[in-house]
Structures are given as structure tokens and as C-alpha cells.
């Protein structure tokens, strides 16, 4: 028995050390990536694209289900994005409230005939609407039968999209004005940093000789999402962004800062991004259609689609990249109650299990290069296994306490070590966020976020572990999943009043 306990303790220590080492490498990579991005991206550089006829068109797709409370403000905000060529496609996913009626009324919509090419199979589409008012000529509203999730609505948007790139977002998210300008840049400036190869291609009949290119195609880009709870929003525009007052969304804000600015930026530096968030992602439409778009059966449709796009590129021997930029461009309302939060995290955990099961042939498979040897192993070892090992560890500690075999001194030192590491990485992530954009108005708010990091590992982390395990159990026993209702409080009037009261 003692040997088993000793073995497990050594294993857990080695596992934790490995995880910390991975995070240290990510820290270094993300610092370089963030610093280089800041140096390259002076504000005036963005203006080049605004005036250019070479700026590719972008379709902004936002599925909506029962969003009557905030739909008008959010659509107005989407229509005022700064970009020379884009369209906004709102997919009304069988809403049972007055979402569609509000849209028709506010934006003067008229039902039209529309050339709809169903390249991805979806639930039936009922009607198409465009505005008679030229001010809203960019808006297309599609009414369809409910698809039991966001994926189906997104696929309808992809089918209807006019342009070569589409941005997928939630209709209740608020996007920054320069979101499209910033997200499209990685597509346009990706180059293989090495010199061209010496392999040449002779063009018959003409005698032209071209060097075979080694350029990479960017298939998706993403950017950080932030929590908008407690911020002041006026007509779909954030006038004052502040950290959430309630503790649960505040923890989530910290988690997002760490996940995007620390983790994903680090992975982006070595072209190993595991996924692009469903809340904000710009995708290559051609490749997305070739892989069948979003899968409505998936619990983590965003990871699933990016994985399939990556597999497609690898299997067709095409160089590709998935990139992240560190600017926060999307603000969303986080779950405010434990009930909603638990549903979200349980679903995410199930999604992870599903991804690993579905693409298990990719794991540790050298044929899939970075995807098989870096991304999937990282997801499996440090994302999927972590809650399981932690739960077993807690069980062993409880056992040792019961049998009186626990070495309290060593236990506290080890836990203290892990706690300190967690605090360090979170503080780093906050620093990267401050380097990129000074999101919060006052230094006090930043310090409060740093202080929140002190209690996060003690309060929030156990919740994550618990809900992840719950997700795994549901997955194991094939329990039926329902997306549930997010229970949004909205951005108008009432929220402004609340914020005035602090």
C-alpha cells in the first residue's frame, strides 16, 4: 500500500512539474508573441486596410435564439464595425419570443427571394429578409427552423455568406469597432519566414519558371473574449469596461485572460493553437465548407471544426496556420449563477471527451505533425487528465489523513508550491493584458484583479474540477445534454443603473 501511495505521489509531482514547465515555455513564447504584436501593430497600420480595394470581404454571422432583450443594440453595433467590405447575417434560429418581429420592425425588413446554396446540410430555412432602408443594406436576416444549438444556425449563415471569410460570433457579444480590421490581418500578412525553396516549376509552352511556394494559409484567427458583467453599455457600445463585481464572472474574467493571453498566444507563436473560440473567430469559408462546417451533434463545435479543418489541411499536404491576436475584441456576459455556470462547464467537459474520442486516431500520430504530437497530447494530458488526477489525488490525501499517514509539512509545502506557480502565471497573464491594452480605467481595478488571483485557486479551481468530472461522468453514462437558457440580464437601461450604484 505504501509503495502505491509513494508511486502515486511521485507521479503527481512529476505531472505537476511537467505542467509547470509547459506553462513556463508558454510564458516565454506568449511574451515574445505579445511583444512582437505590439511592436508591429501601431494604430496607423490598421488604416491601410480601411482604404484598400484589396481588403477581402467578411461575412459576420450571428445566430440568435430568443435574444429579444438585446438583439437591436447588438445588431446596430455589428452594422457599425469599421471595415470597407462586410455583411451582417443574423440567423433567427426558431426563436419563440419577439426577436424576429423586433428586427423586422426596427430595421425595416422585407421578405425577399434569395439565392441560397445549401452546401452544408441544415434544418430547413423559411425566409430571408433584407432592409428597404439603404442604411441597413449590409444586413441579411434569415429565419429558420430551430436546430437545437448554435452550430446549425452558424452553418446556415455560412451557406448564405457572400464573402471568402466569415466571422462567427454570438449575437449577444459586443465586438470592438476594429475587430474585423485586426482579425483579418493575420490572414493577409502570413508568410513563411524562411526564404523560398530552390524547387522550381517549369510552365509548359511558355518557358516560365516559378519557384514552388512555401506559403502558409491561415485558416482561422481568434482573439480574447472578456466578461462584460458590471460594465456600462450604451446602445451596444461599451462606454466603461470594468472587472465584474460578482465573484463568479470575475473568476471567469481571470481565467479568460490567462487562457487567451497566456496560453493561446503562446501556442499561436509556434502554430499549435488548439481551438478558436465560438464566441469570436474568423474563418476561411472555403475550408470550413469542405469539412462540413460546424457539427450540430458536437458539444464543443468550435474545437471540433478547427480540428477537422486542420486535419483536412494536413491530409491534403497543405501548409496552414491558426493564429491568435492578443487584443481583446469581444465582450460577452458570463454566467452569474452557479447553476448556469455548471451547465456551461459540464458541456465543455463533455465536448472535450467527445473531441478526444472522435479524433483519437490523431493522438500521438506523427502523420498529423503538430496536431498529433503537440496539440492533442497537450489537450489529453493536461486538459482532460488533469481533473481526473486531481480528484484521485484528493481521494488519496483523504485516505492518508484517515489512516494517519499524512506528512502535513510536505503536503503544505507541495500545495504551496503549486499555488505559487498558479499565482505567478495568472499575474503574468494580467501583465500581458496591460501591455497590450489598458482594459480597465483605473490601476485600482487592475490590482483588485491581481488580488482576486490569490483566492482563485482555492475557490474557483475546485469548481472547475468538480464540473469537469461531472461532465466526464455524464459522458460516460450518456446522459442527455440540454443547452439551457443563459438567462441574460441585457445591456440596456437597467444595467446602466446598476453600475451607477456600483
Amino acid at each position, binding site marked *: 500500500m505504501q509503495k502505491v501511495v509513494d508511486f502515486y505521489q511521485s507521479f503527481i509531482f512529476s505531472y505537476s512539474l511537467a505542467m509547470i514547465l509547459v506553462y513556463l515555455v508558454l510564458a516565454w513564447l506568449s511574451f515574445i508573441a505579445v511583444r*512582437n504584436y505590439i*511592436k*508591429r501593430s*501601431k*494604430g*496607423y497600420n490598421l*488604416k*491601410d*486596410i480601411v*482604404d*484598400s*480595394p*484589396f481588403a*477581402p470581404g467578411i461575412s459576420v454571422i450571428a445566430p440568435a435564439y430568443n435574444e429579444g432583450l438585446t438583439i437591436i443594440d447588438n445588431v446596430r453595433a455589428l452594422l457599425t464595425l469599421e471595415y470597407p467590405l462586410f455583411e451582417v447575417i443574423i440567423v433567427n434560429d426558431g426563436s419563440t419570443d419577439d426577436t424576429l418581429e423586433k428586427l423586422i420592425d426596427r430595421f425595416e425588413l422585407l421578405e425577399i*427571394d*434569395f*439565392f441560397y*446554396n445549401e452546401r452544408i446540410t441544415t434544418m430547413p430555412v423559411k425566409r430571408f429578409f433584407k432592409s428597404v432602408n439603404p442604411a441597413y443594406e449590409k444586413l441579411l436576416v434569415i429565419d429558420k427552423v430551430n436546430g437545437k444549438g448554435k452550430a446549425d444556425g452558424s452553418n446556415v449563415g455560412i451557406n448564405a455568406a457572400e464573402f471568402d471569410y466569415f466571422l462567427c460570433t454570438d449575437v449577444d457579444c459586443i465586438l470592438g469597432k476594429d475587430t474585423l480590421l485586426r482579425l483579418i*490581418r493575420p490572414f*493577409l*500578412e502570413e*508568410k*513563411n*519566414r*524562411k*526564404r*523560398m525553396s530552390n524547387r*522550381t*516549376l517549369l*510552365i*509548359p*509552352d*511558355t518557358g*516560365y519558371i*516559378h*519557384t514552388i*511556394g*512555401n*506559403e502558409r494559409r491561415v485558416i482561422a484567427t481568434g482573439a480574447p473574449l472578456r466578461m462584460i458583467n458590471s460594465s456600462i453599455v450604451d446602445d451596444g457600445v461599451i462606454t466603461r469596461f470594468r472587472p465584474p463585481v460578482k465573484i463568479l464572472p470575475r473568476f471567469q474574467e481571470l481565467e479568460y485572460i490567462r487562457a487567451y493571453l497566456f496560453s493561446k498566444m503562446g501556442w499561436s507563436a509556434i502554430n499549435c493553437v488548439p481551438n478558436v473560440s465560438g464566441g469570436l473567430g474568423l474563418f476561411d469559408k472555403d475550408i470550413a465548407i469542405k469539412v462540413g462546417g460546424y457539427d450540430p451533434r458536437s458539444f464543443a463545435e468550435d474545437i471540433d471544426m478547427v480540428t477537422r479543418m486542420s486535419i483536412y489541411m494536413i491530409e491534403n499536404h497543405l501548409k496552414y496556420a491558426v493564429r491568435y491576436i492578443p487584443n481583446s475584441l469581444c465582450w460577452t456576459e458570463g454566467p452569474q449563477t452557479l447553476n448556469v455556470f455548471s451547465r456551461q462547464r459540464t458541456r465543455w467537459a463533455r465536448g472535450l471527451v467527445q473531441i478526444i474520442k472522435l479524433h483519437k486516431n490523431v493522438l500521438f500520430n506523427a502523420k498529423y505533425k503538430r496536431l498529433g504530437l503537440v496539440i492533442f497530447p497537450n489537450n489529453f494530458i493536461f486538459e482532460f487528465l488533469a481533473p481526473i488526477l486531481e480528484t484521485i489525488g484528493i481521494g488519496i490525501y483523504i485516505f492518508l489523513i484517515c489512516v494517519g499517514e499524512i506528512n502535513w*509539512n*510536505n503536503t503544505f*509545502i*507541495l500545495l*504551496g*508550491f503549486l499555488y*505559487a*506557480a498558479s*499565482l*505567478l502565471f495568472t*499575474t*503574468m497573464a*494580467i*501583465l500581458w493584458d*496591460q*501591455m497590450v491594452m*489598458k482594459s480597465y480605467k483605473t*490601476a485600482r481595478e*487592475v*490590482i483588485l484583479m*491581481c488580488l482576486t488571483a490569490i483566492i482563485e485557486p482555492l475557490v474557483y479551481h475546485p469548481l472547475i474540477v468538480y464540473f469537469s468530472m461531472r461532465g466526464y461522468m455524464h459522458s460516460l453514462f450518456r446522459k442527455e445534454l440540454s443547452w439551457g437558457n443563459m438567462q441574460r440580464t441585457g445591456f440596456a437601461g437597467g444595467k446602466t443603473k446598476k453600475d451607477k450604484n456600483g
Partner: protein
Amino acid sequence: MEKMYKQVPFIVVIEIAALCILLTAFALVCIVISVRYRYQRDEKFKASLAEIIDNLILELIVVEEIPKDIEYLGDSVADLRALVGNVKWKRQILIEKLIELQWNIAGANRKIMVDIYLSLELFKDSLKKISSTVWYNRMQGLQEVTYMDYAITDLDILQFTLNSNADVRSAARCAYLKFSKNDSFRFLDEVQDTLTVVELIEFFRIINNSNGFGNSNFANWIRYSRNKTVVSCCIRFAAYCNEVNAIESIRGVLGGNDHGLRAEAINALGRLKAVSVEDELIAIYGSQPIECQKEILFALGMIGSATGIEFVKSEFLNAKLFEVKRIAGRVLARFLTKPKFEKFQSSIGIEHQHILKII
């Protein structure tokens, strides 16, 4: 001493590591505070700078003709000079502000920004950055002189077009394009990496905002360059500059395996109104992927000859793919005159009329 270290238990090592980590975290919090402090300092400075610059520009912008000699600025910049002095970070903020303002002011009034840049000798800061060993300083310096029209010699720029850093190379190419008097596009000879769309966008911005360029023979690069992205870039330049001599070179690209490049070539031939290539385009149409078929239809529309328009009409009426019908319909709607389009509309069946309505 060595024995002491060897006898230290591992757990103490962990303890020390945890302590170091906590100290590092504390140091990072101090850095966060310092970053915020610098940000707030910069914002305060920008606000005071903005006020002075806005007053200065308003004062000068109503002047009917801006003199060539920067002496006209006179005391107007004294306040600015007092504000920035020789403080590096203040001067940097001023340079960035001037560049931003340039984007928003059109015509001769942009010269005011340039004159302020020269009057306060801000170009020295940019030149210092160019001679730095750090890549982002070099890149920034080259961008600043390019945006602020401060000419530097070809020789000084050419060395950077071969730099190992891709961003420095891009900035150097833009600077060379802007300032070279002899052959502005000479740097295309040395390009051994891929030219990106962002670089293309910057090249065209420079071309649009500058007064004339030395004649460049794009046909040569289209014919002889081994770099596909240079060929693609030159095809677009040739179309933009209406270089009809390049038509034969572009025609040669039609035989290549790259659909993307072929599509660009077809588009350029349309913009150059290459009537001589029309028959060839119609002949190859059937064997092309849809991307190239779309470009052929547009090219025929741009060329606008009777044969070409008849072909587009026939594709609209007879094509099996709806996507092709849609593109053909758009070409007809765009390039036919209103009376001819209406005549065509009235001569077709109800189904085709419906398609024309929804395209």
C-alpha cells in the same frame, strides 16, 4: 559547503522554489503597477499634446497656400517644442500623433504635419532607430520616414531589403518604393520570400499618394521572376498602371498550373481591355475551374466587345451551374448600358428574369 548542499532535503528545495515564485509574482505586480503608471502618464501627455496640435493645425489650415519654406511655422511650434523638449518618449508620442493625423487630413494640408516633423527635428529620432540593431526599432524608423515623407538615399534603404527580419524587409521595400528616384520597383529583383497582401496594400497606398513613378517594366518581372508572389504583384501593378506592353507577358501566365495566379492574370487582362486575348479566354473557358471561369466572365465584361458580351449572355442562359449564371448575370447588369440591359431582360424567360432580380 558542498556537503551542506548535498544534505538539503528535496522538500526544502521545493520550499525555496515556492518562495522564489512568490517573489517573482510580487515583482510582476510591481511591473503591472509601473505599466499602468506609464500608461496614465502617456495619456495625460497625449491630452495636452492634442490640445496644442489641434490649435496649431486650425491656425494653419485656413491658410490658402502653405509655403514651401518651413519657416512659416515660426512661433507656432514653440509651444510644441517646449512640451516635448528632448525627452525621448514624448517625442515618440508626438511622431505617432503626427502620423495618425496625416491619415485624417487630405491634400496639401498634410504638409503641415511633415513640416512640424522637420521643424522639431523629429527625423533624427527616426534615423537613430533605423541605425539601431534591434529589428523593431529599424522597422519603426523606416515606417516613420516613409509616412512622414522624409527621403533617405536608395543605398541606405537597399541594405534593409535583404535583412533577415521579414518586417524590416517589408518596411524597407515601402521606403524604397516611396523614395527611389531611378527605378522604384527595383527591390522586386531581390525578393526571395513571399510578398503578402498587406505589403501589396501598402505599395498601392504609396503609389496612390505619390506623384508619378519612374517607368517600370512590369512585363519583365511577370515573364522572368521565379517568385510567384512577385509575378502576382506585378500583374496587379501592370493592370493598375495600364501597362499594355505587359499583355503578352500576362498571357503567358494563363498556361500555368496555379489557378489563383491564372485568375489574377485573367482579371488583369480584363482591366487592360486586352481585346487580342478575348478569343483565347473563350477557348479555355470550358476547361477552367469555377474561380477562373468567373474571372473570364468579368474580363469579357470589362473588355466589352460584342463577341464577349454574347458569350456572357449565352453562359447566363445555358450554364448548368447556378453560380456561373449568377456571375454572368452580374456582369451583364454591371457592364451593359441600361437600355441594352432592359432589352435583354425583356427577351428572356420568366425563370431567367427572376434570377436577374435576385442576383
